[in-house]
């Protein structure tokens, strides 16, 4: 189990993430929601050890990931928020790089990379440089790279960004399949419909603090609302969006 315990991150004494605690259980998909700037990506960077917390710790199966980051990284698969890859490499070369960096023998990496590219409908583009890929194609390469070494823990930050409907459906099935195999999955997204369909548990963060952490059903019951979108709207202060839309039209007139 992945446990995030009282994690705080401050920049110049201003907390970006403030005393955040929640658990991600194996065999379940946990959704992590919040508006832009709420602290989602900072939390993710702390979990993945890319960023050091000011306070708190992250445990995997009871062990602090900072005490043995190598053991944690071996078990981690990560899709970052932005599709930043080495654009001069081809999709196949990128997967070969990532597989070998993960310690998979080159021949096994080659086979696995080709299989994944085929399954993600990228095989015919495998030798083209990533700079020529669309956003959705880059995202599929990142997902393939995150799965290449069959990790126990998957942290997926907006993995469906730019992905077409068919690939998104495939990805939802894939997530369920991975959860059934006992993987620990943290799924970060803005798309509430996807989170509602895919995640057993959701954690909602707003202005750096956790506002809710429970199953979608329990949150619906507790808050007496029919959908995750309405739960989210109640927990997160939002502007009067209709009024803002009217103001935009006025501004450009």
């Amino acid at each position, binding site marked *: 189990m992945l446990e995030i315990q009282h994690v705080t991150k401050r920049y110049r004494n201003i907390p970006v993430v403030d005393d955040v605690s929640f658990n991600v259980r194996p065999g379940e998909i946990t959704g992590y929601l919040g508006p832009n700037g709420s602290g989602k990506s900072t939390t993710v960077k702390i979990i993945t050890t890319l960023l050091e917390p000011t306070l708190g710790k992250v445990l995997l199966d009871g062990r602090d990931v900072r005490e043995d980051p*190598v053991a944690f990284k071996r078990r981690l698969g990560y899709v970052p928020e932005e599709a930043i890859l*080495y654009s001069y490499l081809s999709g196949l070369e990128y997967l070969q790089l990532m597989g*070998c960096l993960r310690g998979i023998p080159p021949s096994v990496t080659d086979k696995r990379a080709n299989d994944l590219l085929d399954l993600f409908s990228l095989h015919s583009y495998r030798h083209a*440089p990533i700079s020529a890929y669309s956003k959705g194609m880059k995202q599929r390469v990142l997902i393939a790279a995150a799965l290449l070494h069959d990790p126990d823990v998957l942290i997926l930050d907006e993995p469906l960004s730019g992905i077409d409907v068919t690939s998104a459906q495939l990805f939802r099935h894939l997530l369920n399949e991975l959860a059934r195999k006992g993987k620990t999955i943290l799924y970060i997204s803005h798309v509430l419909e996807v989170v509602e369909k895919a995640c057993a548990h959701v954690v909602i963060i707003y202005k750096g603090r956790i506002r809710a952490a429970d199953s979608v059903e329990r949150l619906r019951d507790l808050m007496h609302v029919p959908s995750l979108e309405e739960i989210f709207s109640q927990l997160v202060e939002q502007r009067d969006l209709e009024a803002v839309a009217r103001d935009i039209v006025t501004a450009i007139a």
Partner: protein
Amino acid sequence: MHRQLVRHFFGRFFDTESLSPQGDPQAGVIQTLGILAVPSAFFVLLFRPLTLWGWNLVGVRYLFVLYSMIVMGLVVVFEWDALFLDSRDYQILTPAPIRRLSLLSTKAAALAIFLAMFLADINFFGVLFWPGVDGGSNTFAILTAHMTAVLVAGLFSALGVASIHGVIATVFRGRLYRRVSVAAQTLLMGGLVMMMFVGPLVAFRTEEFVRTNSPILRWFPGSWFIGFYEQLRPVTKSAVLAGAGSRAIPAILIAAAIFVLTFLRGAPVAPPASVRARRRFVTLASPVQNAVFHFIGESITRSVKHRLFLATYGGLGAALAVMALASGPEGILRLPLTLSFILISALRAAFQFPSELKANWAFQLAEIHPVGEYLAATRKWIVACAIAPLFLFLAPVEFLRFSPGLALFHLAYGATLSLLLMEGMFLGFRKVPFTCSHLPGKVNLTFLAVIYIYGFTTYSRTMAALEQWLAGSPVYAAMFFVAAAASLGGVAFLRRLAIARAPSLSFEDDADPAVRTLGLTAE
């Protein structure tokens, strides 16, 4: 709107990763302008007390003409892909209601301002203080002639390089265009850097070239502009030199015409670099070493910034090779040592510069192997892809010049020294090449200058002398190789100790402290 478009295109000349890898183009531009203005200021102040005339003055004039030409050529090579309207411009600006003629005219205006800025910058101090160098009395005529000659020479060089790209863009299409364009850009970079070092040798031999009516006067563009300068303000009364100058104005008009015509046509949209499989000829047993090994090769061959950086060193190497070969029989012994020194130091410097730094998260999250593995892959790449090819390239020259035994000894000696050099230079290197941020301000120029001056002069001279001595004594030669092997073992031991003390890779260059103290204590 026109003004805004000109500003947009002008800004795009500075929107390059090479100029500001840390994302501050303005500071990068100011630093670059400052650095480029210094040499003409330095040389004009150096020659000012001499007050020259005749062929001596021609030699010094030539230096300034060449500097203007070389730097303007380098500036255009650096902006190679920004010379024409490209697909990005069309994608962004075509949806807006702007006519193509407006796009072309504003792009041309931005390019003209950009070139004028660099022309003025690199020649400013040279022109300002020039009257003291020229032994004549008419200050205005001296100043005007010098200014005209250096500006026209620089403009010709810029237009000449731009027109080469224009011709390539017109003649070639698709993948062939990309390949030829990349090759031309790299060769021009190397050639111009080489001229920076060989130029002074040409400049001070002008009298000899005139006396022998050398083809250099007819075919080397620098001669046309020093001849043009002589036409503007004669100091040698040489009709041959002035005659060479008659090519200057036609040359600049031809370059300008070619560039304008190809500029109006625009550069072709090049397809992605490759959509075919690239064969890998080497597979290392260790997966992580395999990953780093191929990552280095793929980055160094595909990153424009690194290719141009290495071409700069290549130009320096070519210049030193020319000088070594021209220096007599000892030169052939010095050549491999000098070239290997330049090659290894070039790679050391190139590996420091990041390539697509934001993508290095992949390496950070996959740092799950001992650091020694990553470093071993880097050293293996240098041996397999740099040192071995260099000595294979030099082998035919050695076997042609020396007996087989001596040639083999020379090659083994050079390769052994290269290995020692590599181990020494990479002892403190704790990175996967191209994945660590780099703060250029931290480069210790004094230290680098000492290292390079030693490398290019004392190192190659001393080691060539040692080589000559060892070649006469098989016993001492054997002792040298034993000592070298022991040194390599010693370096490996030191590296293991250093890794044990700090067992992780570096992904961020340490910034200078906010407050630098003198480190004084009360004791």
